[in-house]
């Protein structure tokens, strides 16, 4: 279960190391932010799922063996709660990935490629752009869904 420890000193926009051991901190902050914005329980679940996959992807691949950071901003308007992830890692559009085959027998199933696919499935909006050296990925869920 997520602990809703209020992190008084941190909030969005947030700049945080692109490391997997920051995952819990990012997701807890997002959960608290969504509660403040009255995002429904299902909306929170979907955003936590999408954000986990996106942050884990950046932490695992964006900077290869270099140190790097992720900038995270949130917004809430027109019944959409959005989270924007920016990194200066290698240019990479995860939305261009071919979706994994989820219908073949388990023994023939490819293990990879599920993360971004799940982020796309649970989100109501997702977009990518590359601008001035930044990968910018924004994901949104309906507030009242």
């Amino acid at each position, binding site marked *: 279960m*997520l602990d809703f420890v209020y992190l008084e000193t941190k909030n969005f926009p947030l700049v945080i190391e692109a490391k997997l051991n920051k995952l819990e901190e990012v997701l*807890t902050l997002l959960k608290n932010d969504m509660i403040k914005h009255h995002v429904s329980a299902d909306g929170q679940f979907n955003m936590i799922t999408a954000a*986990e*996959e996106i942050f884990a992807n950046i932490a695992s691949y964006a900077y290869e063996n270099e140190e790097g950071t992720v900038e995270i901003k949130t917004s809430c308007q027109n019944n959409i709660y959005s989270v924007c992830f920016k990194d200066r890692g290698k240019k990479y559009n995860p939305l261009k990935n071919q979706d994994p085959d989820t219908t073949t027998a*388990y023994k023939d*199933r490819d*293990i990879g490629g*599920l993360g971004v*696919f799940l982020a796309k499935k649970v989100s109501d909006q997702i977009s990518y752009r590359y601008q001035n050296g930044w990968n910018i990925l924004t994901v949104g869920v309906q507030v009242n869904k």
Partner: protein
Amino acid sequence: MNDNKKLEIEQIKQGNVLTCKLSGWLDPNTSPSLISEINLNDITVLIFDMTNIEYVFSSGIRALLILQKTLEKVGGQVKIVNVSDNIRNIFEYAGLDSMIDA
């Protein structure tokens, strides 16, 4: 907040059936322990009780798929029980919903 959420695995073995009650997180930091901490010797049915799992991320699903592939070689299978509606959706998206033992 510097310590990552741990995954706790309570294992109950009855004959060839191993039931694992999970609590905590199934994320990239914890999911590898699903593989490393479960001994599949003599096991043909591996049941994961997800009562205390709030989220399943792709790293957790990959670990479950690896265990399923391993068990299939001896005619065994993985079963998932006590999932929330949201987690059921995740398994359906991933095409693993037949693992869920309703």
